[in-house]
Every structure is written in structure tokens, then in C-alpha cells.
């Protein structure tokens, strides 16, 4: 069934988009990530203009993350103070992201930078995750216990000023790395149309040493906050949030996520992480191929906005 998207100004098959939302929702439920890094490229590859795809995935990420955050809220597995600091800094990052997004679009280099960023960050995070999960799988096979977190362990991060106490996470750390992580992920999320959960979670665990039981809930709250602001910013600067597209994606995503979460509970954590890592690497490789392979059409045409450019 074809449906007309009023902002994208083209008609798409509703079930294909719904299916994409559902499939990505399933994976996001399975792995506990937002899934934006899969959904945005899928939409772009299926012909939705990148500007509309990035902007319309933002509310979809809000919906799927809100659903997850609520579940963690009920189980009291969220560090609200940490989440708020991350949201505020994430909003700062988002504001920079929207400006850079607009600038790159005008320069005609948006697609290139987005693709390069996908290759770099997805490749890097995917590689690290794969390495970590494979080690963990081997350790488990040999019957060795996973290395435990030692409370007294200090890194150079603990020497920084402006210390803040995060009770729920049992942390007393400088606010500087927290704010930098928030800004970085808000910036990337807005630019790339991703929530950034797959970057946030390892950053919180490995850099800030936030206990794993509050990491996912806290990350989800941060994503809800940052992506809500990103949606409004995209709506205001680019007017490219397609309501109809977003609703189809949301409904598909929320339903898919529930099934994914059910199956995810029966799988081992390190196996899940290894699968997610392979998925992330696959997306990075797909972008790399797009960058390197000779394109069928070397030319592109884009509408000129405003005569004053």
C-alpha cells in the first residue's frame, strides 16, 4: 500500500517502511540500543532524502527509547542525576550538530561527512565491541571469571576538578568527562540521525566506570532527552521532520522492540554483544563500499534553498 509522505513529497510503500521500523525495533529490543544507526541508513538507501531521514528518525528514537527507559524506571535502574547532566550537555552538542548539519548541506559535503563518520565511529566501536565480547566468550569457555570492577581503581580522569557525586552510580568524579561525552554524543546523534546509545554505553562503562546495572537505563533517558531536542531543532531549522514517516516508524519500532527484548532475555550477554558488534561493522562496511566503489551516477542535483546562498 503506497502512502504519500507530505514533507518528503514522495510516496512510499507503507508496509516496507513499517517492516523496516519493526525489524530495527526488534534488533534494538534484542541488543538494548536505539537502532538509529541502522534505521537512518536503511531509509537513505531506500530513497528517502537524507535530510528527511535523519530528522524523522529522531522522534522514532524518542519513542523506542522512552519505552525502554520506562521499564528501567520501574525497576529503579536509572541514575537520574547523571542522566540530567548528560542531557544538558547533549542538548549543547545537538545545537552545534544542527548548525554543522545545515552548513555541510549548503557546502554539498553532508553525505560525504555522514558516510565518513559512519565508517569511522561504527568501525571503531564495532571493532572494540567485537574484541571485548570474543575475549569474554573465550574466558567463559575456559571457566575464568570476568575481570571484576575494583572500586578503588583510579585513572587520570579522577584527577580532574569540578567533582560531582552521583549516588546511584556510586561515583564521585569530575563533571568534565561527563559533559564532554554528552556533548560529543549529542553532536554525533544530531548529525548522523542516531541516538548514540551504542557509543554512550561503552563510554559510560569503560571511561566513567558507571555500574553496568544502571548504564542502559541512564543512557536511554539521555537519548530521550537529547533526541527530543534534536527533533525540535530539526523541525525548526530544516523543516524536514516528516510526521507520517515518523509515525509509521514509531509504531513498527515499538512493536518490534517488545519481541526483540523477549528473545534477548534468553541469550547470553557476550553473545549478544558479539552479534551487535558484527551488525555495527556490517553497516560500517556498507558505507565504506558506498564511498569507495565507483558510483553509477557521478552527478547529483539538489534544490537550492534561498537565493542568497
Amino acid at each position: 500500500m503506497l502512502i504519500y509522505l507530505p514533507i518528503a513529497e514522495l510516496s512510499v510503500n507503507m508496509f516496507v517502511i513499517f517492516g523496516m521500523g519493526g525489524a530495527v525495533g526488534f534488533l534494538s529490543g534484542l541488543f538494548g540500543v536505539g537502532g538509529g544507526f541502522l534505521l537512518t541508513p536503511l531509509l537513505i538507501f531506500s530513497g528517502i532524502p537524507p535530510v528527511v531521514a535523519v530528522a524523522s528518525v529522531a522522534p522514532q528514537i524518542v519513542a523506542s527509547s522512552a519505552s525502554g527507559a520506562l521499564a528501567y524506571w520501574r525497576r529503579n535502574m536509572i541514575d537520574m542525576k547523571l542522566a540530567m547532566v548528560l542531557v544538558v550537555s547533549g542538548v549543547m552538542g545537538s545545537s552545534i550538530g544542527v548548525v554543522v548539519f545545515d552548513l555541510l548541506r549548503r557546502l554539498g559535503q553532508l553525505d560525504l561527512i555522514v558516510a565518513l563518520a559512519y565508517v569511522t565511529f561504527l568501525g571503531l566501536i564495532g571493532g572494540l565491541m567485537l574484541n571485548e565480547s570474543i575475549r569474554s566468550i573465550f574466558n567463559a569457555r575456559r571457566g575464568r571469571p570476568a575481570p571484576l570492577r575494583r572500586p578503588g581503581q583510579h585513572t587520570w580522569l579522577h584527577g580532574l576538578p569540578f567533582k560531582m557525586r552521583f549516588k546511584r552510580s556510586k561515583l564521585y568524579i569530575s563533571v568534565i568527562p561527563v559533559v564532554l561525552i554528552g556533548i560529543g554524543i549529542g553532536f554525533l546523534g544530531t548529525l548522523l540521525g542516531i541516538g548514540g546509545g551504542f557509543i554512550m554505553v561503552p563510554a559510560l562503562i569503560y571511561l566513567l566506570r558507571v555500574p553496568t546495572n544502571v548504564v542502559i537505563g541512564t543512557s536511554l533517558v539521555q537519548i530521550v532527552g537529547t533526541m527530543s531536542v534534536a527533533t525540535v531543532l530539526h523541525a525548526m531549522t530544516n523543516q524536514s521532520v516528516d510526521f507520517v514517516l515518523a509515525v509509521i516508524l514509531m509504531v513498527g519500532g515499538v512493536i518490534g522492540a517488545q519481541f526483540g527484548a523477549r528473545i534477548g532475555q534468553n541469550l547470553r550477554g557476550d553473545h549478544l554483544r558479539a552479534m551487535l558488534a558484527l551488525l555495527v561493522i556490517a553497516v560500517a562496511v556498507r558505507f565504506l563500499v558506498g564511498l569507495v566503489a565507483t558510483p553509477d551516477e557521478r552527478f547529483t542535483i539538489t534544490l537550492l534553498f534561498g537565493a542568497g546562498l
Partner: protein
Amino acid sequence: MRRSVLLAVVAGALAAGPAVAEHMTIALSTAEVKISSNFTGAPITLFGVIERDAQSVSRSGHYQVATLVQGPPESVIARRKDRILGVWANTDSETILAAPSFYTVNASGNIDDLAEKLVLERYRLGFANSRFDYRGRPQANDPAAAEFREAFLRIKQNAGLYSEQQDSVTFIGDSVFRTTVWVPANAPVGFYTVRVFLFADGALLAQADESFRISKTGFEQYLSVFSREKSFVYGVVCVVLALFTGWLGGVVFRRD
């Protein structure tokens, strides 16, 4: 004195020219294409009647008709990718000013056989006779930008927004003709002009203009206006709906 005589002669020639001998009346199947949620494109059918009066000279050749449909003008940037450090990146670009967003020429025969190239160029009939203006280039159709022009035409044709088709205007009898123009779903909204040209033996005998409008209606129209005029509220509504959907999903599928 001589000047006014000359003017009178010119005026008389214009009045007694093609317009009097042959007259053309045209009609479109619709004056407005309405875009609703199930819009996947729409055909526009054009009918025309050629009327002759007593003064019309009898012609040995047949009539030839060409129709030109143009969408609202828009300026676009055409960019070329080149390999830089192993990666394909946009390098050169050319800004094409006020090109029709939609362009279709239908003709009863071969477009090039309708009239001399000079005449076809004046009315921009056919891709080869279109006029392209580039930013920063005073000369129209500057050969230096030819590859961008070719690319623009190719991409527009692949998107179904540009076409030229010979033998697509059919005559029903001697003086009635019809043609159909397909408006695809990705055609931009706005005001479309329709021009019909009547030729015989390479001479332009008559011309008639019509127009139609493509507009969004109902919910689609409302959303589109809302997103532009109250963009902040629009964004907030999207977020609230997203939060509600997420909450609803969590409640409906609650496991614990």
C-alpha cells in the same frame, strides 16, 4: 508618417497572421491535481480542437501539434563526484537557475521535424532546444557547463520529471487531438503551465495556453503548512506523540 504606416502594416500582419487563419481551443481533464495520502501520481489529459475559417488556406501537409507542460521553476545545484584519496567526493558544481521543475514535451510527430531549430529554441521545445542559465555564466547554455546540463537532464528523466515523446499526440479525425501527461508522485506542488503549438509545413500557425495546479489537500496540506509556519510547535507535537507511543508500547506489552 512613414513610421506609423510601417507600424500599421506590422500590426495588420500580426492580426491577419496565423491567429486568424487557424484557431485552437484546448481543454484539460482537470484544473487541479489534489495530493492526498494515497497519491501515487495522476494523468492529465489534454484535448484540442483546431478550427478553420473561410480565410484559411488549404494546406497540403498535415497539422502537427506539440504540447509543453512546465512545472514551477526552481534553482538546483548539480554536483560532480571525483575520486579523492580513494573516496568519491563532490568536487565541481554548477548552479542551474530557474529551470522548470517538471518538463514534458509531447508531439504528434518527431519534435525536430516540427519547425526550424530557431523556432523550437524560442519556445524551448525539446531537451536539445531548452535554455539553461548558470550562476556566474552570462551566456545561456554555456558549453563549459555541458556535462552538468547532461547530468541534470538525465537525473530528471530518471526521476520521471522530464520527458519528451514523439508520436504521443494523437489525432481523432482531422482537427481534434488529444494527449496525456503523467504527473508522478514526486512532482513538486505549484502552478503548471501548458502550452500547445500548432504547426503545419514547419510554420507555427497557432498557440494556446492553459494551466493547472498541483496542491496538497486535507491532512497533507495541513501538516505541510503546520511544519513551515509553526515549526516549533510542530516539533514539540512530534516529540509528545513519540513519548506517548513509547509509553503506550511499554504499557501494552508490559511484562513485569
